[in-house]
């Protein structure tokens, strides 16, 4: 009985909290459905007199090229980051290298710096490679900026792996690549997923590099397009907020896709171990 009370109580607390959590999102949604005139009244809680879906049409029209570009860029860059990062994390944790700690330090410490400090060398670097205004150029830069962070997260999760697993695998004649693919990855899935979520969000929501390193709309990611929607000397919050909802769809899809793995796939991994 005690358990039941606890479940009910925590259910109530969480529901209230969830409602509070959704308040800004509520303001986001109502604004996205208003006219500019209604937004000017700054009555954020009031519902729009008549929901204007045309805001979404207008925003989507402006964003669609960017969405395509962002999907291509952020998914591939995220994948490369997590792949490179997890291999490095494995290498640093699994092989008993003597220099692992200082190396780890040097790899990880740069993740704490905002990239604005090296904006100019980044541009020069990409220009030297002739990769300005290309998908590969943007992906390359995002991988450079985010792979160290992926190393940090995955490395910490690999550390958690029970050593017996490794010994057993060795006895079975399992080589490092097979071990990485068949045991390490499934067992550390939650770690990989949090790395993926964080890296993806970082890349997808990045705004300045997308303008600096592109020319025209062909490969420009979606965030600069979203920022443009409001205008400089005019103020179209309603269109921008509609655009914000549209752009949030991609991360939400990614979260839901990844969530399936960390909620259900996890226990299976441990069970096998």
């Amino acid at each position, binding site marked *: 009985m005690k358990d039941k009370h606890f479940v009910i109580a925590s259910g109530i607390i969480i529901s209230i909290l969830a409602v509070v959590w959704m308040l800004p999102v509520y303001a986001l949604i109502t604004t996205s459905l208003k006219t500019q005139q209604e937004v000017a009244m700054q009555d954020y809680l009031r519902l729009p007199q008549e929901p204007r879906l045309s805001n979404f049409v207008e925003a989507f029209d402006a964003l669609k090229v960017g969405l395509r570009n962002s999907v291509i860029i952020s998914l591939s860059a995220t994948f490369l980051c997590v792949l490179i990062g997890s291999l490095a994390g494995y290498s640093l944790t699994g092989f008993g290298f003597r220099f692992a700690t200082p190396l780890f330090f040097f790899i990880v410490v740069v993740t704490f710096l905002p990239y604005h400090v090296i904006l100019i060398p980044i541009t020069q670097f990409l220009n030297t490679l002739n990769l300005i205004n290309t998908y590969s150029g943007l992906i390359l830069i995002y991988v450079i900026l985010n792979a160290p962070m992926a190393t940090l997260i995955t490395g910490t999760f690999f*550390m958690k792996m029970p050593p017996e697993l490794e010994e057993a695998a060795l006895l079975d004649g399992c080589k490092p690549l097979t071990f990485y693919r068949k045991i390490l990855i499934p067992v550390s899935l939650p770690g990989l997923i949090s790395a993926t979520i964080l890296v993806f969000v970082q890349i997808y929501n990045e705004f300045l590099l997308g303008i600096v390193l592109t020319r025209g709309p062909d490969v420009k990611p979606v965030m600069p397009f979203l920022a443009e929607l409001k205008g400089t000397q005019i103020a179209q919050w309603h269109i921008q907020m509609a655009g914000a909802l549209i752009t949030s769809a991609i991360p939400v899809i990614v*979260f*839901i896709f990844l969530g399936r793995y960390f909620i259900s796939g996890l226990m299976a991994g441990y069970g096998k171990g």
Partner: protein
Amino acid sequence: MKYYKSYGIAFLVPILLIVGIFYGMLIWDFAAAFTSWQGLQPTWEFVGFSNFSRLFELERFWINVRNNLLWLVFFIVPTALGGFVLAYFLSNLGRAENVFWKIFLFPMALSFVVTGTLWAWMYDPSSGVINTILGGIGINTSRLGWIADPKIAVYCMILSAFWQYLGFSLVLYLGAIKGLPSEMIEAAKVDGASRFKILFRIIFPNIAHATLICTTMLAITTLKVFDLVWIMTRGGPGVSTEVLPYLMYRLTFESRDFGMGAATSIVMLIFSAAIVIPYSLWMLGKWVRA
């Protein structure tokens, strides 16, 4: 795996290449910190530490450092702890957790640019969401200025980042808690341990790696926080909500004082090292296995 060291080295090659490029660019930045570069054209003229001494003389620099420390304390601890407790609650809810984690994670899908605007609307003292609701339940809101009040503005900003990142720590802890063998908790229950005890004596120590990663990630976020400050207050009122990355950006691109901007970035690097060194040393003891 020590029989396969060559594999280990091969796995390291890509990240070393990447970090090598990164450091190559940083050297450029370091060099700029010791030059008299002002204006838009690089002047590679060595001036020693004068950029640093000019920086330390600035009153706002110390306000920035203080704000960054406030962020470290008041953002990381509540977000990590909140996510942990919430994850525990959720893990007891069965299927409903599937709905809730999505709700809490949703703010992560929004860029800081949007979050900043939304929270400016939340905090708006005259017509904003918070004061409207407080006013609706009969609280006098005429003195609650939120981000317009320099004394509490920085905390208000931290709260909005808390809103955005709670979902992340929640998901991280949820994954970790669900990874624990259920026998562990059952056994404790049989022993008659209270829920509080189970939570902090049994679950918490066993998912230390999640705490570690969570706090580190949040630390990275706080040291990089830029867009939120830019959108919500531009560092104002005065410089009361400014943080180091924003100062760096303003010195570099607004004041066009590249030398001082680069010096700021070195200060930030020292900050980061202060976080990463203990982390790495802890690894030394616990991590590297033979």
